[in-house]
């Protein structure tokens, strides 16, 4: 019998704010332990939560870019369980009335468009950090009560590839909206996967396992692949499926059973009032949203006539897409710019492991450099080196060319002298050429270039040599 995998993802993203969800403690990463806490986020007796407005705005933006219906009324609940990273004995979450429902993300896998539905999206607070040591654990509450957005997708995903694509789309949409950094390695995006199998062609849902502890998209995909294989083996052996939680072990590349948490009861939170959103509020947030990656990519294809693959790379982040459009405004050959960005700029960024925002080459500088090539001031080849220099120093191309004496020699008189000298020094090659050995010309051009340390305008050298050798 053939089986298909049914995969549902549950994602938590940390939303970007200055202060925590219910108090004014800073959200900054990397502070000394327990230095960003107060009576509220420490859960001291008597302290009360007050909701950060920005948290609501960010969650609504997330809901909008994931095509969710934002509900007019949502409210907060206490999710009750005991764990040392949870200072109050309950987590403030939205259970009975979440912020948003019924969204979707469209993905493209193997050129097929698929829709992954989102069941609901809600706000909740993060817990503290535990450090396990021998015989004890240490608790840091700096992270406690940072704002999270939980996104629960319907089990519409059928493969690890689709899961990866879904996560990429979700991430780029949320990043575009400025909601979250969505960095899995740093924990600002976390993902659990529910995986089950069912006979192909049937509609019923079967017993699933929940897989946790993946810390990159790649690991999510690997863990899902492993889990599908494992379940197939298990089915073949005739084992009965049991609902349980499994932990991904990235070193061994396997999932192993772990103790899952019992479902925690929820009860409405009487210290926090409901969130009631009107159309106007939602519309104003909607108007602040940028064009989303998929739309922007399509517009790039149309407007700039670049290939789909280029558009997809250039719109992978909002900053990069903005950069590209800034360049295109200054220099009107979109494909040329696209090539420079995709080959040279992205390579350098990757090598230095920095983002486009930290890049020293401004759109103006890139445009100027390409203009220098067009004007014949530098060769395309030389420009590659100039670009690396620009990337390092942040200087303008013209400045670098001047300082390093890299300007192309397009002065005919100066070149004629060098050409003459070269011809005199290579009588044998000249003879060969005259005998019809066309390749000899290339050698001569090379010699001239060598003599000028590559600065001679190659087209002009060609022309001059051909003329002299006639």
């Amino acid at each position, binding site marked *: 019998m053939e089986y298909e995998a049914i995969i549902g993802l549950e994602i938590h993203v940390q939303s970007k704010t200055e202060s925590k969800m219910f108090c004014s403690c800073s959200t900054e990463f990397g502070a000394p332990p327990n230095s960003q806490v107060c009576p509220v986020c420490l859960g001291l007796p008597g302290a*009360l939560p007050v*909701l950060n407005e920005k948290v609501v705005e960010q969650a609504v933006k997330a809901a909008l870019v994931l095509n969710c219906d934002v509900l007019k009324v949502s409210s907060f609940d206490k999710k009750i369980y005991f764990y040392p990273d949870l200072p109050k004995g309950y987590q403030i979450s939205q259970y009975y009335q979440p912020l948003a429902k019924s969204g979707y993300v469209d993905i493209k896998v193997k050129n097929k468009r698929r829709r992954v539905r989102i069941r609901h999206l809600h706000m909740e607070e993060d817990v503290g950090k535990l450090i396990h040591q021998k015989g004890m*654990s240490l608790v840091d509450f700096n992270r406690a009560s940072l704002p999270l957005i939980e996104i629960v997708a319907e089990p519409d995903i059928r493969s690890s590839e689709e899961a990866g694509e879904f996560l990429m789309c979700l991430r780029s949409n949320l990043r575009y909206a400025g909601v979250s950094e969505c960095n899995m390695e740093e924990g600002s995006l976390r993902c659990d996967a529910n995986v089950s199998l069912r006979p192909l062609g049937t509609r019923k849902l079967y017993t699933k396992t929940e897989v946790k502890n993946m810390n990159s998209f790649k690991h999510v995909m690997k863990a899902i692949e492993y889990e599908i294989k494992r379940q197939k083996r298990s089915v073949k052996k005739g084992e009965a499926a049991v609902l349980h939680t499994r932990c991904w072990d990235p070193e061994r590349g396997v999932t192993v059973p772990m103790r899952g948490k019992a479902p925690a009861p929820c009860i409405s939170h009487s*210290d926090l*009032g409901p969130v009631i959103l009107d159309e106007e509020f939602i519309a104003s947030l909607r108007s602040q949203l940028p064009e989303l990656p998929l739309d922007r990519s399509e517009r790039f294809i149309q407007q700039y006539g670049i290939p789909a693959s280029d558009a997809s790379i250039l719109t992978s982040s909002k900053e990069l897409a903005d950069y590209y459009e800034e360049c295109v405004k200054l220099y009107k050959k979109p494909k040329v710019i696209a090539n420079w960005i995709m080959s040279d700029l992205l390579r350098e960024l990757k090598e230095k492991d920095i983002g486009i925002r930290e890049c020293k080459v401004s759109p103006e500088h890139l445009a100027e450099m390409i203009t220098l090539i067009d004007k014949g001031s530098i060769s395309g080849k030389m420009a590659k080196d100039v670009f690396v220099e620009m990337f390092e120093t942040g200087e303008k191309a013209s400045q670098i060319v001047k300082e390093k004496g890299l300007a192309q020699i397009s002065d005919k008189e100066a070149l004629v002298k060098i050409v003459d000298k070269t011809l005199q020094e290579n009588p044998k090659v000249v003879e060969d050429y005259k005998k019809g050995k066309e390749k000899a010309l290339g050698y001569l051009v090379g010699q001239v270039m060598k003599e000028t340390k590559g600065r001679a305008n190659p087209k002009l050298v060609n022309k001059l040599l051909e003329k002299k050798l006639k």
Partner: protein
Amino acid sequence: MKLNELTAHEIRELIRKGEVSSEEVTKSVFERIEKVEKKINSFVTLTKEEALREARSVDEKIRKKKKISPLAGVPIAIKDNMCIDGVLTTCSSKILENFRSPYDATVIKRLKANDLVFIGKTNMDEFAMGSSTENSAFEITHNPWDLEAIPGGSSGGSAATIASDEAILALGSDTGGSIRQPASLCGVVGLKPTYGRVSRYGLIAFASSLDQIGPITKDVRDSALLMNVISGYDERDSTSCNYPVPDYTESLISDVKGVKIGVPKEYFVKGMDEEVEKSVKDAIGLLEKLGAKVEEVFLPHTEYALATYCLIVSTEASTDLAYYDGVGYGYRAQSRNLDEMYQNTREKGFGDEVKRRIMLGTYVFSHYDYYLKAQKVRTLVKEDFDKVFEKCDCLITPTSPTPAFKIGEKMDDPLRMYFPDIFTVPANLAGIPGISIPCGFTKKGLPVGLQILAKPFAEETILRVAYSYEQNTGWHRRRPAICDSQ
């Protein structure tokens, strides 16, 4: 008359005229405490050094002719469920016996800004769960009128301290009657403001949707003066109301002509004490004679209020008490691993009544329909009041169905323990304000209180009626003789 026997407004006059200093008043209060505290046990923590230091600094301000607030220099006792920075805040529970709050509750901040002098923290039922102060993990507070009787609760310490002249002013908190009922049983004035009138930030929660802080005082004027200090919006409490705070002393007018008083039929029930009933009816008669219009009214869902309260309070309490796990603060029992630590800490840290409410509450929230049902009936109880207040300015009822009972008499009978709250609980469910003022004594010499209820934010009506009654009677001036023979 000794200074500690005066009211706050009397002391205020003397301080203003320069006839006494805050230090003298504070000293007289501590002298009294030294004399009677052994018999009353109203305090769990005393802060004499800090109090005297604060009193001297107020006196210094007065000497330097700096502007001071009306209650500056007046000693005040605080129920031990309100956080004062650097001071033990225990809720009379073992689980918090060493908890020194690192922050001030908003009411404490307000009192500090007005230069009141904190003399100590008063005893209470553990986490405010109870109506007798017998549920304190530390000590039993005695009723100054009969040392073998309970002072009521849960703010029993605050009420007893006022009745025995150990303090000039006190703060209590009221979740189901915890200010009004002990005030009634101790013969003092206790006001529960409208839910949202006084910030709860820094008040250790018993049941968040019902809790409210309020004054326990010797007379109605002191209540109004203290309300002026503690009321108002607080951005740290989402449930606090941004609603203007009047000068409550302006409603102290001895005139009830034309005031429409409703007397709810359901508040005169079987099982209530005859003497209590008579005192309250006499009081209503007096108000009628003074020109009030009295009318019988109906609050048909009253009989369901106690069951509703019981469910809501336990459910909220059990989640609010999830804070206490031995991780960040408070008591921690020695244990080999985490789960053991939770179990042992909570087993040893909480008393019997607290455990019972946690158990009930946990059962209820894991059976959500119970809670939902209670929330729905809560709506009905509230609507009863809404309807009645369309035609009445206020309601008058007994505060407690009986006077103070003997210590130990009702322990460990879970249902009877709720009985003292039957007349006070509905106001918490509806969020409306209520006051208890003395309205007589039983033949055995125990105080009886009457309760005045009004619609949300109508504290002024309550104060006016209470003041008028007080001015035409003298109950509030009686003081117990705490004699050695008792």
